[in-house]
């Protein structure tokens, strides 16, 4: 079992290294876009919240795992910290914590779009290196 996981990881790492950093970013965006589509396909607000919360948790878990890896540079750690803060703000807003008003049930679809679109700005977005980004994606995929 461990051997199979290691082989899967090595193959994914090889393929994604050639695919490059763009693919890494794309996968993260796709992760949140898929969650947004799932949210919109669900009528029950509590299920919508659960889908959004799980999608955040999965990425935060991957970020924590990668951050503790010896492969990660100081700059990457800072980039990951920044990304975690961004995600934490969204989790807080969803739940109505830390000064946020809780996102109303009727606005959960729009909030799901907001999460996706906030990652799709024409800003300088890459502050995490290729290696770190690939590790994050691999862990997110393995957590599915």
């Amino acid at each position, binding site marked *: 079992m461990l051997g199979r996981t290691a082989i899967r990881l090595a193959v994914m790492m090889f393929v994604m290294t050639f695919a490059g950093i763009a693919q890494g970013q794309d996968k993260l965006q796709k992760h949140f876009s898929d969650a*947004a589509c799932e949210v919109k396909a669900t009528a029950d607000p509590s299920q919508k919240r659960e889908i959004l919360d799980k999608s955040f948790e999965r990425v935060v878990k991957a970020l924590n795992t990668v951050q503790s890896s010896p492969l990660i540079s100081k700059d990457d750690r800072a980039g990951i910290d920044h990304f975690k803060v961004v995600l934490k703000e969204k989790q807080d807003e969803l739940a109505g914590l830390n000064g946020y008003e809780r996102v109303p049930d009727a606005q959960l679809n729009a909030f799901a779009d907001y999460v*996706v*679109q*906030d990652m799709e700005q024409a800003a300088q977005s890459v502050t995490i290196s290729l290696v770190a980004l690939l590790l994050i994606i691999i862990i997110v995929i393995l957590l599915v």
Partner: protein
Amino acid sequence: MLIPIVHERQARVPSAFWGYRCLALGLLLSSCSFLPPAPSETAPGEENELLPSYIVVCIIHGDSGYLFHDPDGNEYRADEEALAGAKKVAERNSQAEVFIFHEKRRRHFMLFFPRRDGEFYYYRNGRLLAQESYWRDHGQSRFDPEVELYYRFRAEERPRPVRLFLYFGHEIPEIGGTGYDASYRDRTFTVHELVDGLKRLTRNSTKFDLIMLSSCFNGTPHTISALTPYARYIIASPGNLHLSYFDLHPFEALDVGLRDGDVSAFAKECAHQSFDRLTKDIQTEITVAVYDVDRVQGFLYSVDSVYDDALTRLKEEAPTSIEHCDCAEDPAYVRPEMSEGIDVFYRPARFGRSRHKQEHSGWECPKLLK
């Protein structure tokens, strides 16, 4: 002046031929890409009555990180969408000369042989006259290949054509700038490289009537000041801009939009249409500003040294510790003439800490995260 005219079909035949030949010689050659088409001439006098009234130069950066989704989850590449929009502009303006440069991600043939990573399209009077691939990294300056192609193909001009420059890409940095191109991570690209390109496209003589920067955070005093010698009007976003970019539809009928030669009104109409389109589907902040370059000089002059000092201090800081804010929120930049010469279309983000912010000055400034 001889005008190189190549029909699309002519340009593609040698390309396909060389493409197959390259494939056969792949292991021997260091690259495999299309050869530039051989120019041919039109009959003398034929083009005189078709001299362009509009010149549009469009640079589309599409190296990395340009994926976006619509609310239904469909994927789009921002650069491909911008390219399709620019081609429509080129095809629908019968009196325009349009230069489109698509800067693509560097790819390799059989993993080792680099392929050309720039694609150039040249349209005149609504027809594609040339298309060729080029190397983006040839030349010392960032826009050497583009400037060379521009002067190789440009037509004789009417006495006063309207000149438009459109840029699509991520935020053009004011400091740092390494890593902007994922394919050339050691190369630097800042506002100053853009200015160098504009300087050579205008040859220090004629300004662009309108520059549109479809990117995030470029509506800053420093960027607008740097572009001042090369632009009469500028459309830019001082805040975040979604990758679905500004709208190109108003550019599809330049004869109508610029009927009265009023570039100011045209720029405001473009900004308005972009704002209307973006507000339909986008939940994040939308800020589109139009700068009348002559009229904003008072404000730019008054904050020039403050802003430069801030940039000098921020050069030492990690990118993740720098954030952007509305200049009106920082007393160091607040001046009575701040709103002079600027039209702002603004809607706050639907969510997040700034969702109750009701106004934007149209100027963005950098600050250190607390």
